[in-house]
């Protein structure tokens, strides 16, 4: 019984982290049709920045905030200076985003060295919580909560604010949105910043669970891609559902069928895409 409960909570925590990681990617791709392959690197930068800020003694909340701001700034600069010029040229975008991720990864290696750096969670969350007679890390419970809050905030942002309305208009029909006066260039930069910030926040929150280490970007990027594609492009709800599906599949899969540990992440995606190429909740365009 304990096994099932623990694994369920593990799945939820992993799913929550994936949601934080992938929602930014989904936003950017949904609106701008840019597959931001730097997303994993932004997550890693968020984790490293949070680690340093926490180590300097400024507290976890500050670490998260600064991580988000740092990645938002990097994202915004990159979009303005580089990606803006590559509109419509998908292959050049691949080159640019991957190129930036190489630079970012090597820079992190130079700045922080090759060892993993633990991120200390806030003191009140660093021990195990006692639930129904067994222990579970309190921090992971907090991650589940944070992810749900983030999902709600994003939902409200998209549905209840003007920025959100503009984003939805752009996702549905960009030419028409331009025709009614929505300034695409400013919108693109804001969304890219928002997406990058989400990645950085994901890294900051993920830090205490995963630590910041070289290679974190390469480990996280495929996960973001899987979640967004499985959920369906253009649908944040799809991303939400897919995050938790992948969380469950990975956690239970590695425990119950260890021989398939390496492929367990991809099998559901292959199956879904083979039968429903637009993903679970995707729109007509893929």
């Amino acid at each position, binding site marked *: 019984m304990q096994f099932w409960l623990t694994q369920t909570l593990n799945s939820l925590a992993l799913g929550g982290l994936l949601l934080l990681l992938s929602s930014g990617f989904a936003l950017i*791709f949904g609106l701008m049709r840019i*597959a931001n392959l730097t997303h994993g690197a932004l997550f890693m930068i968020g984790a490293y920045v949070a680690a340093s800020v926490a180590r300097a003694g400024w507290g976890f909340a500050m670490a998260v905030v600064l991580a988000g701001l740092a990645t938002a700034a990097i994202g915004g600069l990159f979009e303005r200076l*580089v990606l803006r*010029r*590559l509109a419509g*040229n*998908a*292959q*050049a975008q*691949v*080159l*640019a985003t*991957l*190129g*930036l*991720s*190489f*630079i*970012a*990864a*090597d*820079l992190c290696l*130079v700045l922080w060295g090759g060892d993993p750096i633990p991120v200390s969670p806030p003191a009140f969350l660093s021990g195990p919580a006692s639930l129904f007679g067994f222990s579970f890390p309190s921090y992971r419970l907090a991650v589940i909560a944070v992810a749900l809050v983030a999902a709600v905030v994003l939902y409200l942002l998209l549905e209840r604010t003007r920025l959100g309305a503009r984003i939805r208009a752009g996702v549905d029909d960009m030419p028409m949105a331009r025709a009614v006066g929505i300034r695409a260039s400013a919108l693109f930069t804001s969304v890219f910043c928002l997406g990058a910030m989400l990645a950085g926040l994901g890294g900051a929150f993920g830090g205490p669970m995963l630590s910041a280490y070289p290679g974190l970007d*390469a480990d996280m990027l*495929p996960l973001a*891609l*899987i979640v967004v*594609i499985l959920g369906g*492009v253009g649908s944040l709800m799809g991303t939400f559902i897919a995050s938790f599906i992948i969380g469950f599949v990975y956690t239970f899969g590695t425990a119950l069928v260890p*021989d*398939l*540990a*390496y*492929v367990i*992440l*991809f*099998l559901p*995606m*292959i199956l879904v*895409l*083979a039968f429903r*190429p*637009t*993903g679970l909740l995707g729109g007509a*365009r*893929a």
Partner: protein
Amino acid sequence: MKATIPGLLLLAALALLPAVSGEYYVNLGSQMLIAVIFASSLNLLVGYAGLTSLGHAAYLGLSAYIAAWLALRLGLGHAMAAPLTLLATTAIGGIFGWIALRASGLSFLMLTLALSQVVWGLAYRWTSVTNGDNGLSGLTRPAPFGIDMENSNAYYWFVLSITAVVLVVVGRLVNSPFGASLRGTRDQARRMSSLGYNVWAIRWCAFVGASFVGAVAGLLYVYFHKYVHPSVLSVTASAEVLLSVIAGGAGTLAGPAVGAVLVVLLKNYASGYVERWNMLLGAVFVFIVLVMPHGIVPGARSLLARLKEKRA
């Protein structure tokens, strides 16, 4: 053809490399040529079919592993193992293509990535066949017509001749009616479809062709290294060849070759002089994308055209 003379001159120049360089450079040359073949194979998909794949390392890797397995576990000689390897890898390419082409755009990319990751996972885990992360070693190079390929120069000339053949064949294919219809499906899929072309079948043929040429690269790879490890199937390997193609200029014949040479030079040669060669690689890519967003070869061509205009 007007390109034949420069092509032959280039071939002759490259053939002279062993006469003027030490063994290290000859070996580096072999590696570059293998990368050129591999990049050209991906270019069929990325450049001419307009299908960006992040899983192409699967074909090089499958070919390398199958060849190794046939030689080590079944004891087959090269004359038998090579064609069987090409056949098997291409067949798998056909199946993967069938799966991947059910989607397009980013979903296609993800499917190719997923399929290659499944193969990677198999290579890691199926230790009874692949020896897991210890890899398969103890392989030999073929000896066609009795020529000993263990000699670096001989192997270099062998790879060079195959590269020349591959480029000629790919060039012919791309300039044929099939190549034209392939480019048609890239640029105007709907129109092609309404004109009666079977867009899916054309793309699938391109996929199979790409996996075949990728398998050729895989054979040359495993003969060169005489060792195969799951890392040959990694996302990094797929990403590197994709970047080579795009950076060099997808959709041109010379582009992937230029891109492949650039990446091999930076990885293997520059890394001896520049400690932060990864950053350099990334910076070069970003630079190319800013200055020549369609790749080096198209960028160089337009630069040349502009210079001609200025003079006129």
